[in-house]
């Protein structure tokens, strides 16, 4: 088979060049390493220790106990005292603090009348008795922070008064599967496999062909009997190995450093990952046939990378997105891989049960390869 030997020629040439290109080779290792550390440690959807201030108009023992109790939840960290609300709001504007707790003069009376404390007086429906005991003023621009403070709204107050804690029976019981400790890393690390593969695979292949054009190698290549499809396959196969290496780095470190469990089958993971790597590589090839130079190739890579990070379900749940965003997300290979990899790693799903995503990745690869081979003309026009 002449075709096969030509693919092999391009493949081994590509490997030799990669071996010499210390920068790219370093990126192959460093990108997953550094990104994993950054994302793994930095992304945390359990917001804690929000810097907060206090405006205490009552200055009583009770107000101090209230402050201590709230501090003990670790949601906020009180760092500043302010004389009045205006000063506190100015501090929020300067971003010294993100929220301020305003304790009114009559906090003791309000507490006494508060229904959850229930000091014997029958629950009343009049204005006086249904008032909150204090007020939070929050920098609402960040919805995560706002939500964290809002979660304090119905904080139990009984322990404030040294009353036996009267634990009420919850309406619902909640059982958390797969990530009972609610550690963000468990969700982030498998997803990161998808993001890093999107980034490196698309970048490497899109640059690989554009570089040949820029350096003039393509003019020589296209006067040889190499066919476009052979060139394309020869170019992407080495990167499949690189992709596999990166996955091993991310999941291995994820297991060691972030204690991310690996519940699924290795072959299931390999199947899903190879499918996704192929789809990303082919996308890179399509970009390389569109881009005129390496800068354009990089720009187009970012154009794909950003929605892959934001819409794929990597950070924000897919279900929470508006329909249009969901439609866009469905086009991106990263979205499908995100489902597959979390399914396999966290929930031990077989990929055959997620065949919709697998088929979609396969289709994407086939169509992309056809487009790239078609667009890659063997002339300089």
């Amino acid at each position, binding site marked *: 088979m*002449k075709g096969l*030997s*030509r693919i*092999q*020629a*391009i493949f*081994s*040439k590509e490997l*030799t*060049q990669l071996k*010499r*290109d210390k920068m790219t080779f370093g990126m192959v290792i460093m990108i997953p390493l550094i990104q994993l550390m950054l994302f793994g440690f930095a992304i945390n959807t359990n917001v804690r220790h929000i810097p907060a201030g206090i405006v205490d108009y009552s200055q009583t023992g009770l107000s101090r106990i209230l402050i201590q109790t709230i501090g003990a939840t670790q949601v906020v960290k009180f760092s500043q005292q302010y004389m009045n609300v205006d000063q506190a709001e100015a501090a929020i504007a300067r971003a010294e603090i993100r929220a301020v707790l305003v304790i009114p003069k009559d906090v003791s009376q309000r507490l006494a009348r508060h229904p959850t404390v229930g000091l014997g007086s029958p629950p009343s429906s009049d204005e006086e008795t249904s008032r909150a005991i204090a007020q939070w003023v929050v920098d609402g621009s960040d919805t995560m922070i706002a939500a964290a403070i809002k979660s304090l709204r119905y904080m139990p107050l009984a322990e404030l008064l040294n009353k036996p804690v009267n634990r009420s029976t919850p309406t619902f019981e909640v059982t958390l599967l797969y990530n009972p400790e609610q550690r963000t890393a468990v969700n982030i690390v498998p997803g990161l496999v998808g993001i890093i593969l999107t980034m490196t695979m698309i970048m490497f292949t899109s640059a690989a062909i554009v570089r040949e054009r820029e*350096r*003039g*190698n*393509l*003019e*020589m290549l*296209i*006067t*040889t*009997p*190499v066919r476009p499809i052979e060139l394309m396959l020869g170019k992407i196969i080495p990167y499949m190995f690189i992709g596999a290496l990166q996955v091993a780095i991310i999941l291995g470190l994820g297991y060691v450093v972030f204690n991310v469990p690996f519940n699924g089958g290795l072959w299931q993971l390999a199947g899903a990952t190879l499918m996704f790597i192929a789809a990303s590589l082919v996308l890179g090839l399509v970009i390389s046939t569109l881009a005129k130079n390496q800068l354009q190739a990089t720009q187009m890579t970012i154009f794909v990378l950003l929605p892959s990070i934001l819409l794929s379900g990597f950070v924000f749940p897919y279900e929470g997105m508006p329909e249009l965003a969901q439609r866009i997300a469905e086009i991106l290979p990263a979205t499908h891989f995100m489902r597959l990899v979390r399914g396999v790693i966290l929930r031990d799903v077989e990929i055959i049960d997620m065949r919709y995503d697998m088929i979609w990745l396969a289709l994407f690869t086939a169509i992309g390869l056809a487009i790239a081979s078609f667009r890659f003309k*063997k*002339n*300089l*026009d």
Partner: protein
Amino acid sequence: MNDYVIKASNLSRNFGDIKAIQGLDLNVEKGRIYGFLGPNGCGKTTAIRLLTGLLKPSAGEIQVLGFTLPRDAQKLRLHIGYMTQKFSLYDDLTVQENLGFIAKIYGLSGRAKRQRIDELISTYGLEQTTQQLAGTMSGGQRQRLALAAATLHKPELLFLDEPTSAVDPENRRDFWEKLFDLSDQGASILVSTHYMDEAERCHKLAILETGIKRADGSPETLMEEMGAHVVEVASSDLRQLKQSLLVIPEVITAAQLGARLRVLLKNTVADPLAFLRQQKNIAPEDTLSLVRPSLEDVFVTCTGKSRQLSKAS
């Protein structure tokens, strides 16, 4: 019919408003070294790309080795070799790796591949550099490597685009020896150049200017049939003489060559020596001699722009 390896008629190629090639007719005989001579930007590279099927013509017909272009470009590829103007092998591969890659692309493997590569390495004097990265080699070495790669599959027809532009004179001579060897072995060669001495070595050549073929033929014929006389004048004040001669309509150009002035006269002048004698700045003791035209004279005579350039300078 089949004596011609390249036949092109009325070939044109535009890039937007730029007419890179206009109405080019070309017949290249088998087994010959055919030259494209012309200044930068005259369309040499474009012509070669059209003849190798890398570019599609805007108009005109091309037949190369009996294949009709651009339709049969893919079939033609096995039979031609192309050495690009800019080095187009891989800078980050060694000589051995570059040749190995090309060999595999052309379907050679195992012993046949090794033999052919060893053969090329010794033919082109690359023994010392087999493990050297192509990007770190000298201009001459890179050029020999490129020629080795272009001839690896023993093509019948070889296109060489300014192969000696980055090479010192000694290497240029050696390189032409290699071309004659290839020609003796039966290959047809089309080579572009902007060096007169190289053009003179070709069996036949075409002089190109701004995409138009101004003349073609063997260097000897071109020189003999040039429509001009060449007179060398030895005189005391060459600069002033040159200025006064250039205003005469019959004078095509005058260029100083050491202690002499080389004057090209239109061949409408019957007796060039007598004609010049009558001119005012020629002193009786000055010597005038009719000399054999050089290829440069041919080039200057038949390219409009260069004549103006020469007159101006």
